[in-house]
């Protein structure tokens, strides 16, 4: 099997790669680029642990062939914070105990970023619950997750207002 060339911008860094076409975006991140924050829970689009943003949209990276996303911009959990400065979503997950074992957490956080960008849920907790239902949490930290989303949105909106002012 010949490898195919692939260029991806991941967390702002450009990667020129050669990959087996069978490799999923998830396995590329985890097994070849040492970006292991993105997790594999089911590998079949049924749990959301592998959620990343591709060109700004949340998708299941397990059901994405890496080669099919040639040229894309990918954001993973490793690219969300800057050093010790947590993104408001990350800080809110800690503050509201929106996780226990932490395995689904990168996917939950990436999904939250996607959800906020989609701007469909607003501050309606029911819409947030529905919008976050593609991310299973077996520890069932769902209540904390919803609270974290609400608070993070509020913080981000405040920051936006400050910027605007």
């Amino acid at each position, binding site marked *: 099997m010949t490898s195919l060339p692939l260029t991806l911008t991941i967390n702002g860094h450009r990667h020129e790669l050669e990959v087996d076409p069978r490799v999923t975006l998830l396995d590329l991140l985890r097994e070849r680029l040492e970006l292991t924050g993105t997790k594999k829970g089911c590998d079949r689009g049924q749990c959301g642990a592998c959620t990343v943003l591709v060109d700004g949209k949340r998708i299941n990276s397990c*059901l994405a062939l890496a080669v099919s996303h040639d040229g894309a911009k990918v954001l993973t959990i490793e690219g969300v914070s800057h050093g010790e400065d947590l993104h408001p979503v990350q800080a809110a997950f800690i503050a509201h105990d929106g996780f226990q074992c932490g395995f689904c957490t990168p996917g939950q956080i990436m999904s939250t970023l996607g959800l906020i960008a989609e701007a469909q849920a607003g501050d309606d*907790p029911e819409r947030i619950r529905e*919008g976050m239902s*593609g991310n299973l949490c077996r520890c069932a930290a769902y209540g904390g997750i919803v609270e974290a989303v609400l608070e993070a949105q509020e913080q981000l909106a405040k920051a936006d207002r400050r910027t605007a002012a």
Partner: protein
Amino acid sequence: MKNFDYIRPTTIPDALAAAAEPGSAYLAGGTNLLDLMKGGVTSPDRVVDISRLPELNRIERLADGGLRIGALVRNADLAHDPEFARSYPAVAEALLSGASAQLRNAATVGGNLLQRTRCSYFYDTASACNKREPGAGCDALGGENRLHAVLGWSDACIATHPSDFCVPLVALDAVVEIEGKKGRRHVTLEEFHRLPGQTPQRENGLEPGDLIVGVRLPAEAASFSANARYLKVRERTSYAFAVVSAAAALVVEGGKIRQARLALGGVAAKPWRARSAEAVLLGADADETSFVRAADAALADASPSGDNAFKIELTRRIVVRALMSALAGTPGRLPALPASPFSSIPGVRHDA
């Protein structure tokens, strides 16, 4: 998965040429194809990636008042297109009740039409499945089949079609645009999906190499926008396939039904247009009595294919409720829990 050739054509003709070889599969969003490949259910020799084809990713208003949706428009983009959601609210609701936000961001319109069944015996390659391996037999018969078909099934296959999106589409007379060796052709969605008969492997009207390039909604489809709902019974509140579902759309004048559309999901190998029920509704009083009669008509030919007799009664009830909901009027905003019976419960805060 096995090794495959990966080809990314840049034009539709190139795509058709690339896929002309036996053993080819088109890749768009990949949400179903990759799942099938990982499970060993499908093993293409050649994957033709059409996800970048230009011109398939647009939503266009047609001169005749209809709408053309490119095959590569993502489910989420379509559902969140404000004008689309206003004109075809039941379709938007169905889209948003399917899968998860992540999957809807990847899954495409064309791919949704080609979703394979969730029958566990189809997925379990150690089981006999006529769909996966013609002539092998059907282990779903006599197996764990409480969620299997109650309409249009055969002794060769009792699987159901899993799509939500297709249910209101078929109700609204959607047409599939197909590009093939002999050029472009149009097939109604109702005719596009096939019942299993003795050839359950033939799920639709595509010939090898054919490519779905778009879906059209006729002008008339938008006339139901004030009274159209999609309703879906599930075994968890979200991120679950339908046990049964129904799309209902009405045009009501002076208490009489002037036009009626009804389609069912989760009951057959195809999204099920309930024309006999529509005939009952046409001209009838817009009330529960008519809807019950319509439900009886819709399910007149239903029969259990296994431990699933309850689905017949459940479908009868969802028909009535979907029609009642449609009659009550399309909500001003899509409910927080799209298509859910619980969509009317207001949201509360955790630990409230």
